Structure formats: C-alpha cells, structure tokens
C-alpha cells in the first residue's frame, strides 16, 4: 500500500531531515511511527500523501509514484488527519465540513448526503453544529469523520490523540481498529503515546534523525531497550514492568496479561512478584 524507496528529504535552507529511508507497508496493516521530536515523523507522513515530494528516492502509494501523481488523486486513496483539527475545519457547519471532501472529490449529491448522514451518526455528531465552538475532542472527531467519510484505503494520523481525554482517545482508536479489521483499511499512526502504540499498533517503525533504527512487531520493539533508547523513546509501562520481573513475564504486554500472570504467580507462590 505504501512504499518508501531510499527516500531522502531536506527542507529549504535546512539539513537533510530524512536520509535514505526505505520501508513497505502492506494493505491492511496497522503501523505506528515513533521517535523523538525532530526525528522526521511528520515529514514522513506528509511525504506519504504527496504534500511533500522527496529530494531523492521514490514514494509509492498503492503503486503510484507521488512525484508523478497529483495530490488530489492521492487524496482519493489516502486520508490524512492533522494534529491540529483547526487547520482542517473550514466550513460553517459540521454537515458541510464532512460533506466538503466528498464534494471536492466529485461524489453525487445523493451519495454525499447518504455518507455524511451515516458518518454523523457513527461519530455522534450533529450536522447543524458550528464546528469552531465545539470542544477540542469534538473538533478532532469532526476532522476524523471528514477524513473517513471518503473511505480512504490508507489513513495517516499525525498525533491523533493530542489534547483528547482518555474516553475520546479510546473511542477514536477503537473505531479505527474496527475499520482496519472490517474494511481492511491500512492505518499509519504517528504517535508519542507509547501506551496507545502498544495497545493498538501491530507493527512499529522507530525513527531517529531521519533514519529507521527499528522496524518490527510492536511487542518485540517495546521490549528492545537498545532501539527505544536510540530513539529517545520511553517504552510503555507494562512491557517495562514485565522486563523487570524477568523471563517468566516475557509474554506479558497488556494490563490483562499482567493481571493474569501475577495471579498465576500468586497461586504458585513463586518469587518476588508473588510476595
């Protein structure tokens, strides 16, 4: 679905931000891109939908070279959720905002109306709301709804849960997971929140100063302290705790697994965890 082939990128008057980066994301994968500030995460997400073009190498979206394809054509396949929903929202009602992407992409009036109403219901939004005066969480939901209404094959989320409370965050992530499972939508999520990455991503790409230092299964990456420290990333709490408890907890990654493992240890009366 998305391929980076030896991609390099530099902003004007700046050093190279991305350096000879290569990776491939299959259709239906749920991938997270992690790394410290300035590692190039947002640049990669903008390269992936053609907003930025590589200075060297190629980016392919579903086989199409982004340098030879119009951004508007890429937008039909790639949905992009910005960190700040206020940059995205430009219409005076939630209905118009959600319908905007469909109108731009040339959908019929009936189809636009049908899809907009469907998404309004799914995201518990009201069409006549004035979007700019809603809460941050609601504005983020409006922005996500207006991205997903076009049914993109690849959804890129740049820090999707910034400024959201736990309930709103879970709601958005659960919806995306469901979409990933039922519609086989590919999700690329840029995030600082390691708990979120641990819980939702199946694969993690670790980035440091524009270079890929880790690429693999989320569980394996979360326990590889050498990779995480290279990227200045603080790992999720449960895998860190499991590492400290030793080999018997090597398969523990979630709260539920940790509770089960501790109960088991207690029943068997073993070691420091049981005491």
């Amino acid at each position: 679905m998305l391929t980076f082939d030896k991609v390099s990128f530099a902003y004007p008057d700046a050093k190279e931000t991305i350096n000879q980066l290569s990776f491939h994301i299959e259709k239906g994968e749920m991938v997270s891109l992690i790394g410290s500030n300035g590692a190039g995460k947002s640049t990669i997400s903008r390269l992936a939908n053609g907003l930025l073009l590589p200075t060297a190498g190629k980016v392919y979206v579903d086989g199409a070279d982004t340098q030879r394809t119009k951004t508007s054509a890429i937008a039909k396949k790639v949905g992009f959720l910005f960190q700040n929903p206020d940059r995205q929202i430009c219409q005076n009602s939630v209905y118009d905002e959600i319908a905007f992407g469909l109108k731009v992409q040339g959908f019929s009036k009936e189809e636009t109306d049908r899809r907009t109403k469907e998404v309004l219901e799914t995201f518990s939004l009201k069409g006549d709301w004035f979007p700019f005066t809603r809460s941050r969480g609601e504005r983020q939901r409006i922005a996500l709804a207006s991205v997903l209404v076009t049914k993109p094959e690849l959804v890129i989320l740049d820090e999707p849960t910034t400024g959201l409370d736990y309930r709103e965050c879970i709601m958005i992530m659960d919806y995306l997971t469901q979409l990933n499972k039922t519609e086989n939508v590919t999700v690329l999520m840029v995030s600082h929140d390691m708990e979120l990455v641990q819980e939702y991503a199946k694969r993690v790409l670790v980035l440091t100063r524009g270079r890929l230092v880790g690429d693999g299964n989320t569980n394996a990456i979360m326990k590889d302290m050498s990779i995480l420290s290279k990227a200045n990333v603080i790992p999720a709490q449960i895998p860190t705790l499991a590492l400290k408890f030793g080999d018997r907890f090597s398969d523990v990654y979630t709260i539920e697994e940790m509770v089960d493992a501790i109960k088991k240890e207690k029943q068997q009366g073993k070691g420091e965890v049981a005491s």
Partner: protein
Amino acid sequence: MNLLQYVPGDSFLHKLNPVTKLFAAFLYGVACIVTQSVWVEIVLIMLMLAISTLAGLQKRALHLAKNLFILGLFMFVLQLLFVRTGEPLLVYNNFCFFTTGGLSSALLLSFRIIGTMLPLMLLFAITQMNDLCSALVKCLHVPYKYAFIVTTAFRFVPLFTTEFHDIEDAQKARGVEYDTKNFFKKMSLIAPLFVPLLISSLKKVDSGAVSAELRGFHLRTVKSGYKEYPFGLQDGICAVCILCLIAGAAVL
C-alpha cells in the same frame, strides 16, 4: 524564504541603533521618491543591493528584488498604457499605444517601487523586533503599548504565512486542487481557507494578550527595559550619508 525574518549577523549595519535603521530605511525610500531620474533610481537600487551584500544578505535582497520586479512590471504596463503625456512612440492604425511621457513615467514608477521596498525589507532582516520596540520606547519615548502593537503586527506576519500554508496543505490532503488554471475556481477554493486562518489568528492574539497581561504587561514603562540603545559614531555617519543621498537624489 521568509522576507520578514531577522538574519543574525555582525556587520556594520547590524550594529546600528534600531532607530537609526528605521529612519535610514524610511529616508532611503524618500530619496527614491524625490528623484525624477530613472538612472538615479537604478543607482539607488544597485547601492541598496551592495549595502545588503555588506550585511551578508545578497541572496535575500536579490530574491526580493526579483519579486518586486514582477510588481514593478505590472505597474510599468499600467503606466505605459494610461499615461498619455509627451510624444507618441508607438502608433498603429492611428491608435497610439504609448507615449514618451508614458514610457519615462512607467520606468520611473516601477524602479521607484523596487527602490522604496528594498530598504524596508533590509530593515527587518538586520533588526530584531524586540530591539526595535525597546529602542522606540527608550530613544523616542513612544508609549510601549503602541511600539509593541506595531512590532507584534510584523512578528505575526510570518506566523500567519506558515499557518496559511498548513491550512492549505490540510485542504490539499482532502483533494482540493489549488493548481487549477481557472482563476475564479481558484478563488472559490481559496476563500474557505480564510475561515480557519481567521479563527486561529484570533485565538493566537487572544491567548497572546492574556499571556502578556498575566506577566504584567500594563506595568511596563520606559525604565522597564534593561538594554540601552546609545547612538554611536556609526549612527552619525549613517545619518550624514543618508542626508547626502536625499540631497543628491533631489538635485539630480
């Protein structure tokens, strides 16, 4: 390239008092306006490019001159077609396209635009807004509130430019085609962008005002700034040069 951004440096121009820089830029513009000679305008532009090179800003000055040239060209065409003084220069089928007066007026005006704008851009490149604001308060006793308003307005321009590009990117990502050749379609696509820009600008201004108030903005007086802005020999030299330039421009 952000033309309003300060470029750090250690040149003679950077070391001038901010008030001197402000007046020098203004008076350089006056010199460009008072002269009636196209050749003097060209000399003034060349001189300003040379001065920019001294401050290490040749690339920025050339970039700006190139952009101003486009504006100048537009004004040139308008003047050429509408000023009808002097002798006819191009006549076709008894219709006079332009005259000698139109040509000289068009040349003068287009060069004048470049000549007056260049020093202002150089001012922003060699002066930090905080210094300009403080110097206006310390040296000219302008009330801090007004000096702050002016300098903040300039400081916000690059911020809003970045914000506008980000908003434009967000809409491109939704499939909006801004590269359409149809002017009216392009305008209809750009118009909605001003809504998020206006909202974010108002939010920024509001939060900036609250933040300033919370840090005692209203308590600030002339004595509040610890940095002094004395006038030195170089300021005197600059003032003499600029006055000579105006005199020369008026005479020639």
